[in-house]
């Protein structure tokens, strides 16, 4: 383990290289410039290919090609650029190809701004492109966690043959923190990809498609996808709970907001308010079960997001009326302070 001070964007890049990244494709957009620049500096020296594409559409399709060839591949961007990638992501998902996509979210819709936001939750977790598909969506709240989740993202993507997304935001990308970087993955430990297009010498040719003209055939392909998604839902839900054991109010927040919400819980406890936090780490699969269990005994579940209430819909699906589910959000790249959230918490607890 080596301990270094890094920005979120740089830690993500370094972790990806250590995970065995071979092909990285990008296009400039703020606020993930440091990630791109780190890759430009480091990846060519460390056995990988860096290419700055002519557009995000080109970049995701380069990922499509590299993924089909069976190498670890990644692209990164920020909200408007991720929107452009959606067609390619749908094809990757349909073709069952693993890859990692990093979205350092910024304010939207449209051109929006470059401030931190969480308005791409729907896009990330509900299938931003066409068709019935899901991405594994991991939401780090600190720089060390970002590095760790990038490595996990590659493993999960390969294991299930599903594209995985790291959903961060501009604040996480810019923030500097000490990171313990895990040692580089031994390339021989990365599982074989017998389905990959590696030249069919001595074996039957592999076929990678997201296409079947016959409805029965396409239904079968979709069944395989859906079976994979159910398995992921059973095995890969990740979340963190803070002070939930005796909580009277539980905040649900992820990423940058999850980090701020932790501070809110600490301050609330100092004032004698029994607050807790559930922080989803996988946004898909979403921690429905743990939330449902909490809702059996916690009267109020407060969702806090940098959006108009996108994850809030999943929280309410989990709670199903068992508890009150108020919402507190900010829009346009405005980040609420712990004090502001705390006063929101106070509105919902009996004093």
């Amino acid at each position, binding site marked *: 383990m080596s301990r270094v001070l890094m920005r979120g964007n740089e830690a993500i890049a370094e972790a990806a290289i250590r995970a065995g990244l071979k092909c990285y494709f990008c*296009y400039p*957009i*703020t606020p993930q*410039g440091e990630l791109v620049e780190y890759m430009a*500096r480091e990846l060519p020296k460390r056995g990988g290919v*860096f290419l700055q594409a002519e557009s995000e559409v080109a970049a995701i399709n380069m990922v499509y090609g590299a993924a089909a060839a069976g190498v670890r591949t990644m692209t990164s961007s920020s909200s408007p650029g991720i929107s452009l990638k959606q067609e390619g992501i749908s094809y990757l998902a349909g073709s069952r190809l693993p890859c990692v996509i990093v979205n350092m979210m910024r304010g939207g819709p449209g051109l929006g701004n470059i401030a931190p936001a969480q308005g791409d939750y729907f896009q990330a977790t509900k299938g931003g492109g066409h068709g019935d598909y899901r991405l594994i969506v991991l939401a780090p709240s600190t720089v060390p966690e970002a590095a760790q989740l990038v490595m996990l993202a590659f493993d999960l993507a390969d294991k299930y043959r599903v594209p995985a997304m790291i959903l961060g935001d501009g604040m996480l990308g810019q923030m500097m923190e000490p990171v313990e970087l895990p040692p580089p993955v031994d390339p021989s430990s990365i599982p074989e990809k017998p389905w990959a297009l590696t030249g069919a010498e001595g074996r039957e040719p592999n076929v990678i498609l997201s296409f079947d003209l016959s409805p029965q055939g396409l239904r079968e392909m979709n069944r395989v996808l859906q079976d994979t998604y159910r398995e992921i839902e059973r095995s890969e839900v990740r979340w963190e709970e803070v002070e939930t054991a005796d909580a009277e109010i539980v905040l649900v927040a992820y990423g940058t907001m999850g980090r701020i919400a932790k501070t809110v819980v600490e301050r609330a406890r100092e004032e004698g308010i029994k607050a807790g936090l559930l922080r989803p780490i996988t946004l898909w699969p979403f921690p429905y079960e743990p939330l449902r269990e909490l809702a059996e005994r916690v009267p109020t579940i407060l969702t806090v997001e940098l959006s108009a209430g996108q994850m809030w819909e999943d929280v309410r699906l989990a709670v199903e009326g068992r508890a009150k589910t108020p919402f507190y959000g900010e829009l346009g790249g405005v980040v609420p302070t712990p004090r502001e959230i705390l006063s929101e918490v106070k509105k919902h607890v009996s004093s």
Partner: protein
Amino acid sequence: MPVKPKEKPAPELTPARHPMEKFLRTDRIPHIWCAGCGLGTAVSCLLFALDELAWDLDSVAVVSGIGCTGRVAGYLKLDSYHTTHGRAIPFATGLKLAKPDLKVVVFSGDGDLFAIGGNHFIHAARRNLDMTVICVNNFNYGMTGGQVGPTTPIEGRTTTTPFGNFEHPFNLVYLAASAGATYVARWTTLHARRLQHAIVEALTRKGFTFVEVISPCPTNYGRRNKLGEGLDEMRYYAEHAVIRHGADPKEAEIVPGEDFLIGKFVDTEKPTYLEMYQAKVAQLRGG
């Protein structure tokens, strides 16, 4: 006693007001551009050209994409649009076809028009859509911090080519000419009068007209490639830009340290998209 000559007032070197202020949204000034950037000159040339033409400004629309040059639309007191990154030309196409009487000008950067927007550029030129595209070429993506672009010369240093660029760049003059543009000119921000004249010509010709403006980006491309201040780059243009009208567009490559061609490369005429469309409609109606 000799009569003392009457002192002439010194010429106003830095006027308090922009001479083309009437075309600017002064409430949005100061602009965001860096000192020494060529964008101000490029915009002024467009404004002086519009002034010279004395058109009814209600008939002019300026469309920009995203990037440092993309900001132009926001500063103009004309009908102006700051559109999607790379999509200024499709937006302008929609605008032109919805309002054929409008004079549509696309004003954007090399990355916006020729990387992400490259496909749109060649197809608008192929169709000979009536519009004027002005591209400020500063050899990198300025706004996002100076990444490699489609015109970055070989060995050019950018934040994403830290060891020197090894991708072949576009020769925009050649690209525009081969895609079918009916007017193609290239000037630098040093050649302000000639640039203004080229813009006037481009605006008054029919069909798809293109003006490339070579421009300094001292903050990013200039600094990383040790080109000095904006003024040093202007000196470089004075020393290396060779005016040759009618030159073969193929020869308009830009290689750092070597002379490069500027001037008017193409000035021709062919039916525009709208003319072809109208002829087809007339044929259908007639038959």
